């Protein structure tokens, strides 16, 4: 992925803009994004500040007449942003690796030159941090995966991947919250509920929460 050496701001038509931070895909940079999001969400005319992976989208309540002031505020805000260390919850998530849903477990092992047990153990070791939510309701982008189990995304996305799929896409891992198309490789599944529109906060997890995958079972 491209690494920038200075912040980059681009327009998404008249309804939003995207701020992309320079630097690595790591927790210190992400913490500055969370800080900038907390600040920018209070600015007048801003509807929502939505963190991505070391970037931030601002959607407009009303599109600003002129953009220079907003661009300058974002650049200044980034320079001033101290990392926001969110003391999130730690979730233990039981995972069944392999089986029908996790049918790509063997492919990932083959691709990485590892055994199935190695892949499972490497995947279940780190404490992952929820970097951002996005894609579909309740889906979390996680940071912290061991690069030894990196596998490029599919050339052609699957039309339907099961809800609760634990998947690897490039150097990222995540758990889908509902069934839908996916370009990632499913290596397991969990029956946890990530999203319910009737909850006061509809998503179960928030940026800064951490996840530890527990090996419930490995189906070879």
């Amino acid at each position, binding site marked *: 992925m491209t690494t920038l050496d200075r912040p980059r701001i681009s327009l998404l*038509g008249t309804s939003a803009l995207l701020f992309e931070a320079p630097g690595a895909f790591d927790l210190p940079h992400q913490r500055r994004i969370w800080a900038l999001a907390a600040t920018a969400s209070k600015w007048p005319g801003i*509807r929502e500040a939505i963190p991505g992976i070391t*970037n931030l989208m601002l959607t407009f309540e009303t599109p600003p007449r002129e953009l220079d002031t907003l661009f300058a505020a974002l650049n200044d805000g980034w320079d001033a942003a101290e990392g926001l260390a969110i003391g999130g919850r730690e979730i233990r998530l039981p995972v069944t690796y392999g089986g029908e849903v996790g049918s790509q477990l063997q492919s990932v092992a083959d691709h990485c030159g590892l055994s199935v047990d190695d892949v499972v153990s490497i995947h279940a070791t780190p404490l992952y941090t929820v970097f951002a939510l*996005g*894609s*579909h309701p309740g889906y979390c982008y996680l940071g912290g995966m061991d690069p030894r189990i990196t596998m490029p995304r599919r050339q052609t996305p699957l039309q339907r991947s099961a809800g609760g799929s634990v998947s690897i896409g490039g150097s990222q891992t995540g758990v889908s919250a509902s069934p839908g198309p996916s370009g990632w490789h499913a290596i397991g599944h969990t029956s946890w509920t990530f999203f319910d529109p009737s909850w006061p906060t509809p998503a179960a997890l928030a940026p800064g929460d951490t996840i530890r995958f527990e090996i419930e079972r490995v189906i070879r």
Partner: protein
Amino acid sequence: MIEILSVTGPASVQDLGRFDQSRFGVGTSGAMDDVALRAGNILLGNDENAAGIEIPMLPFKLRFDRNMAFALTGADVEAEIAGRAIPPWWRSHARAGDILTVKAMPRGARLYLAFGGGIDVPMVLGSRSTQFRGEFGGWHGRPLQPGDILPCAASTTTIGELGVEPAEITLARPNAAADETIVRVVIAGEYDGFDAATQALFWSSSWKITPQSNRYGYRLQGPAVKPKAPIEKRSHGIVPGVIQIPPNGQPIIQMRDAQTSGGYPKIATVIRADLWRVGQARLGSKLRFEQTAYGEALAAEAEMSAYLERLRTNVRLIEEIRTCR
């Protein structure tokens, strides 16, 4: 209440959309042609955000179980109620037991059926729109089926027939050929990642709208538009209207049910004032992009708002004249 008797394809309950839930991964949903839904609600004296039915395929048939005003806007339409033909962009009135039959859409891709008072399904996360991926909102989070009985809120709407000028006439774009939709776009983050010849190809091509186009996205077909070097972005927020270029070089316009984030390079974004035109572009027809600056895009939005304001004023004046008689 109204009962769905016959439905073809994914008709759904939509209002203007769900705009402040992106940070939970929840997309906007909402009417693909928001101008048409607003116009229907204006005709009925409803809140403009009242929920109606978006109909993408025909035939469609429903029965009214009480006297009720309704409006048909969006695509051009061949429809009748109790044997009377209904013109497009028209408010009409049904008696209890009347059956509305929509037979054909000679032009356009989506029809909006609005009801006096609006469809009274619960607000979920601030909207009545159907969220298909999350299976919530609208009518049980799913497309409508025959036998569904939808509640409508009480309404004080007057019952006379009334029509307004369709948006496609008032807001017509110059130089648009019969089978081609021209939409204005503002360039996006990765535009400079394409060389000048490829950028020129993007502007000059007449893009075919493939059958894989729907509420999630419009997949276009034409010459391959590929960046100078492959671009893989870190996942970031996107909005409806964003035009992504996947590795095969065939653009995808993100629409109302799109994911809230993505990583493909973005060449441009369809402006809000023109996104409804994409929603009314038919499968198999052609689409062309016209570059516009941010300031011009705001002016286009103002023009759209002025059109809606004129509708409000005209409808109010006509009601006042009727009341005075």
